[in-house]
């Protein structure tokens, strides 16, 4: 097990190394001159040259890459070109806000999705199953921004229950803070729910058909024990993996949702950075998202191994 974890961590570092090269290459390939972006349209050639000199943008690319990476390894993410401030605190603040959004959505997706999946499997090929399938497909086939707009129109404008957009820090009161989160979390949940509930449904159906579930029924156990103790426990294993992949989706969704709801998180910050060719900000942002994605997959695999005794314990003792 220890070997496995070590191996995975080595892999993650390899992935990050490859990603850093890719990110660097892509940001270099972005159209537009960085210096001109910073200085505005009416900058003179001399001014541009001065900036390029100052930022050492004319050095050979490998050298620039090396400078960036070696700074990264010492924990220095560089300075934002546009805002002329260190990147690290900027990212850390928006990352915190996005993390709140992501965790709440993930929690809702997991709890609601698994519940719906179990109900659908138990009521296989009956009305509840069809209903759940229909709504979860509807959720996945309609893009996030549509749900976002629909929620704003109905709950914020028409009913006036929640604020339409924006973000309020926790210091202004729990209620107000939460009310600003409801709409974006609901939107993200809707789009991810289908994956989880479908996955839970199919693995639960598979479990219900296994011999050990039949054996559990043959023992005369109450149906709830058969369902939760014998079937669901095993059915959750594949669901965990899907949840981890969902984290990747979530980051894709967050960019859109944060824009729709004017929520100042990672997604909006990245969008801003790309619009303004703020290379250090883009690079650091993408790298951090990559790291989060890799780590969430690792933790899913570890959780999977922990819950699965076939991995946790070796073979044959008698």
């Amino acid at each position, binding site marked *: 097990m220890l070997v496995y974890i070590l191996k995975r961590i080595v892999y993650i570092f390899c992935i990050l190394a490859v990603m850093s090269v890719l990110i660097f290459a892509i940001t270099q390939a972005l159209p537009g001159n960085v210096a001109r972006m910073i200085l505005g349209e009416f900058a003179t050639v001399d001014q541009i040259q001065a900036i390029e000199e100052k930022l050492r943008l004319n050095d050979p690319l490998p050298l620039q890459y090396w400078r960036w990476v070696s700074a990264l390894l010492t924990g220095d993410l560089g300075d934002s070109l546009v805002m002329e401030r260190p990147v690290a605190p900027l990212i850390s603040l928006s990352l915190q806000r996005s993390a709140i959004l992501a965790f709440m959505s993930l929690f809702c997706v997991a709890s609601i999705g698994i519940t719906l999946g179990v109900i659908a499997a138990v009521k296989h090929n009956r009305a509840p199953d069809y209903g759940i399938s229909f709504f979860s497909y509807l959720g996945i086939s309609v893009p996030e921004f549509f749900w976002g707009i629909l929620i704003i129109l109905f709950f914020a404008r028409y009913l006036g229950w929640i604020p339409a957009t924006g973000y309020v820090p926790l210091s202004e009161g729990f209620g107000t803070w939460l009310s600003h989160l409801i709409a974006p979390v609901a939107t993200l949940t809707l789009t991810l729910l289908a994956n989880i509930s479908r996955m839970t449904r199919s693995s639960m159906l598979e479990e219900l058909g296994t011999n050990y579930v039949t054996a559990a029924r043959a023992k005369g156990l109450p149906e709830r*024990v058969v369902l939760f103790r014998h079937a669901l426990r*095993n059915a959750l294993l594949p669901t965990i993996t899907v949840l981890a992949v969902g984290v990747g989706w979530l980051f894709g969704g967050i960019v859109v949702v944060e824009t729709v709801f004017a929520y100042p998180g990672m997604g909006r910050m990245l969008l801003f950075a790309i619009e303004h060719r703020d290379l250090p900000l883009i690079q650091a942002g993408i790298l951090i998202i990559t790291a989060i994605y890799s780590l969430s997959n690792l933790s899913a695999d570890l959780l999977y191994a922990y819950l699965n005794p076939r991995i946790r314990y070796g073979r044959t003792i008698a």
Partner: protein
Amino acid sequence: MTDPNNILEVNQLSLAYDTSYGSLVALDDVSFEIKKGECLGLAGESGSGKSTVARAILGLLGPEATIKKGSLMYAGADLRELSPEEQRSIRGNKISIVFQDPFTALNPSLTIGAQVAEPLIFHKGMSKSEALEKAVDLLASVGINRPREIIKAYPHQLSGGMQQRVLIATALSCDPDILILDEPTTALDVTIEAQILDLLDELCRTRQLGVLFVSHNLAVINRLCERVCILYAGRVLEYGKSSEVFSQPRHPYTKGLIASLASLGSEATNNRLTPIPGGLPDMTALPANCVFQPRCPFKESKCASEIQHLATMDDGRTVRCWKAQKEANLRWTDLPSDHGDVPQKQKASFQPSEKGFIEASNLTKTFSSEGILSELVAKLSKLHVFRDLQRSPHVKAVDGISLAIAPGEVIGLVGESGCGKSTLARCMVRLIETTSGEIFAEGKEISREPERKLKHFRQSAQIIFQNPDSSLNPRKTVGQIIKRPMVLFGLSHNAELDRRVSELLEMVRLPPAYAERYPHQLSGGEKQRVGIARALATSPKFIVCDEAISALDVSVQAAIINLLQDLKEKLNLSYLFISHDLSVVAHLSNRIAVMYRGIICEEGVVEEVLRPPFHPYTEALLSAVPRFDDKTAETTRIRLKGDVLAMAETSRGCRFHPRCPRKIGKICEEITPPVVESASGHRIACHLLTDEK
């Protein structure tokens, strides 16, 4: 009718399944009773409805099954009329069941203790700790050593035999009145099967249990059950005392079943088997009245026109055949059997030619666990500091085996599962790469040849797999499946191809029209015939039959065995015939090789290896086979303890010594026994041999 000794009475049970093809009558007028302390056998092939009976008794039928008629009387009440809640309180408590495949019947994510204790907690209201304490006793009572450790283990940590013991302990936990055993030993090795049967035999005798033993294996039923009920297509065809039914079967189907069994008895080995013609009936379109008549050689017009009732014979058994009383002594073998175009002849005493067609020399196959990092860890773990990381990275599946197969020769390869039979076979046809050693095909070394130079070898060496369901592409027609190898090797073209397909189908006795069918439209036996036809398509000289008949029903098995035998004689094929069924191997092979943990411990002509067996392992394997024909073997049983997979790797001495009933002493533990070859080519690796001299 109602005998106070009967604890379960099944009366005229009729049951139907709703399928997309309409209603399917799975059981029709099935009646039997189980007495206290008695073991009743329920025998039948696939689709006979034997598992449906078991499920009906437990109230575990799915929503698509409906009981049309009949009653299931237990303790004065009809089980059918109980509420679901009442049925549940009986299930696992008063009536319990052990399923076929122990590995899938245990929940992989719960500990053994939790699973054994469950019925006690829910039926007897015990606390968790009380129930676990009882579980320890139960495990000990079914012969599990160190039960306190085992209750903390997970199912995958136990061997198949141990898992089955765990399930038996679970079934017995609440002291049931009735124990249903649904093919309890079918998934196990013959040595483990023998251990489990001994255990069941003892349990039946010591506890006043009523046992319903469901199995397709007549020999196992004969060993354990006083009475037997023969089921075919959901109908009881014969029902009576096992000894009488098996020694003097009255129903043509029972006669056919017994005639189609390969036997280990010496006189039987040279005869051809007499299979039941045809296949199992289509349950959605059953023949009228007598369901067996399309396959019955004794049939007359009355069989189809008149309803067949179960009639009581003079000796008390009941038989569903109007001719049973009249023609009781008519034997199945008296009939003109389907010998086809091959004349019946004695198995020729085989004269191996100088050179083997295929020869393995000092073959070794090692499976290493994975990757460079693990190897590094394995190396690190040799250092004291990292000892915790240690695990065994290498498994020697085949360890220095030499084996030659001559043209036209059949070598039977036997041994328990996990001994390396399949690995050896796959190495020999180069489906997997060998670690070291050489393979010669027609005198040419091929073990290191690159794939592109193997074309000729690939054409001449083929394989038939165990499970025809998974080895035939479901999206291709039978014709396409058989054509594929011929196209691949450029053996024939266009119209010639279709002609070859018909020819091959005819060779495996399938109608040419089958070329248009898809695998799912065929029965198990037919699919395996297609598998054989595909293997024959390249006109090979050597075929590996890897448990090729094990998944088939008894009545179909015999026909495939005969087919393989005929083809061998017609085409001068060599087979490497892998099977766990010693009687089939003995029937078909010229020579037998007995494998144990990656080595061959005995090899030679069938007569010399089996009659009588010399190597203690061969002897133990042979004595573990439930014998149908030979009751005397029962008294001199040798039982191997433990299980191959659970044994620690023995680095020195004879590999078999930890389980050997005839161990001499220190020499067995310390010195690897040399292979001694007799003049007749009988090779044995055992110290007993040198000891006797």
